């Protein structure tokens, strides 16, 4: 049996003062090849959690293990789509997508460009390769960031609301694409999303977070059969799981008023 892809051991985080932690005692583990979604109110610390897993933010206490090793920054098998896309403004779209492959340094320039072009096609961005980020629409930037994360050979994908700026149809299409890629390659995916339907549709498991301080309210296994199809979205079973998550979220939300 392989080690879990991600183990978060009782992690707390306090940006400013230890008395008002942003995240409190987060404990979770993601199996290899699993797709886990994180949902929770705005500002509860989802992005911070992802940044800690990615190794660029130090937990105030607790520790994180990736594929059995102490986590570090710059893990070749880890890919990240930040919440605000973050393309390099001085690079064209194509060059932005090439970046992870350039950094990996194990492919020649021509293969890199070919792969990048394929990744751009995957997210429906063929034709804008030579534009600069400032010439893109919000959704296009987000898709470019997604293409950049997909282009490498990452074994773990951390996605921070990668579809937030996309219309429903593009979103559906990319959801299916993501599921297909995961089925094909068996990569591990952690996805932060605000769309509960999306969370249920994509995930093996949904982690529901609450706020003040940010903490895990509960984990819900989604036993829907795989491969998932868009048709499932209408079914009562689907609605059941959406409802369960909504209820859990609302508990956490209710909390807030007491503070």
């Amino acid at each position: 049996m392989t080690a879990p892809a991600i183990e978060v051991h009782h992690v707390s985080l306090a940006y400013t003062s230890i008395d008002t932690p942003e995240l409190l005692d987060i404990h979770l583990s993601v199996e290899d090849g699993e797709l886990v979604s994180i949902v929770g109110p705005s500002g509860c610390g989802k992005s911070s959690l992802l940044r800690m897993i990615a190794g660029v933010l130090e937990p105030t206490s607790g520790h994180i293990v990736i594929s059995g090793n102490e986590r570090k920054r710059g893990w070749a098998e880890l890919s990240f789509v930040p919440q605000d896309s973050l393309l390099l403004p001085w690079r064209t779209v194509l060059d932005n997508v090439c970046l992870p492959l350039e950094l990996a340094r194990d492919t020649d320039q021509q293969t890199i460009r070919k792969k990048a072009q394929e990744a751009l096609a995957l997210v429906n961005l063929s034709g804008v390769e030579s534009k600069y980020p400032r010439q893109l629409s919000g959704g296009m930037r987000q898709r470019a960031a997604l293409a950049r994360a997909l282009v490498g050979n990452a074994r773990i994908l951390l996605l921070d609301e990668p579809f937030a700026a996309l219309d429903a149809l593009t979103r559906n299409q990319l959801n299916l694409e993501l599921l297909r890629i995961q089925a094909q390659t068996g990569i591990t995916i952690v996805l932060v999303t605000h769309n509960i339907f999306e969370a249920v549709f994509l995930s093996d498991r949904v982690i529901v977070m609450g706020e003040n301080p940010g903490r895990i309210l509960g984990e819900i296994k989604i036993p829907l059969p795989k491969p998932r199809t868009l048709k499932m979205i209408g079914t009562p079973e689907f609605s059941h799981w959406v409802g369960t998550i909504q209820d859990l979220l609302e508990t956490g939300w209710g909390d807030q008023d007491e503070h």
Partner: protein
Amino acid sequence: MNTKRNSSYPHLHKVIPVMAGLAGFVAIWHLLSNLYEPFILPSPAEVAERYRVLLDNHQPLARHFWITCFEALAGFTLAVITALPLSYYMYRHPFLDQLLTPFVVGIQAVPIVALAPLLVIWFGFGITSKILIAALVAFFPIVTNGLVGLKETDPRLRELLQIMGASRRDIFFKLEVPSSLPVLFGGLKVGMTLSVIGAVVGEFSGAGKGLGYLVNLARGNFDTPLIFIGLIALAGLGLGFYLILSLLEQIFMPWKKKSML
């Protein structure tokens, strides 16, 4: 937003203001020169005439020009190859910053030529000391702007590259360099023109060649038109360097639309 110019002389709209400015300058100069003795402020015509004489006698203006050009360029190059690493290490290690800033600033405020004997002992009578002075004066703006540019790097982009497994080297070349280029080029432009001044000041305090020497010679010989020829040549040299840097700027930053000359 940027409609393309249909003119068949695409740079005409840039050249016209420059020409207009030049013409205005010469006109004002001419008017002013009427007010003063020619040995205080010669007229443009007198300077031109002096230039003609200089050329007629096969006198060595070009040689002086190229020597100063070389000194300034060498000094600038020296400043760049020392200032850039320094600003990088000061950026990476605030301790170094605190350790070295007082010296960098201190040296800057000191007229190096007052230490000329030491410079001669260390660097000989030749152009080495001029190159060094040019490098010293060009140094500070390059370090400063290099540091400011680096400090303006978006920390979120840095994080992202770190996650991608970028090495320090990668982060330097793929993030820090392009992101600090606009500010750095400002420092390079200032440093470049200062290196011309530096070379000239070095020549003032002891040299047998170069435009600084020429100006000094003209001063001693009461040859005001020749002083002006020297100054114009220096201004031209500074402008040439500036132009080259502006071009490099456009080449190195294709993602910026440039409006300037």
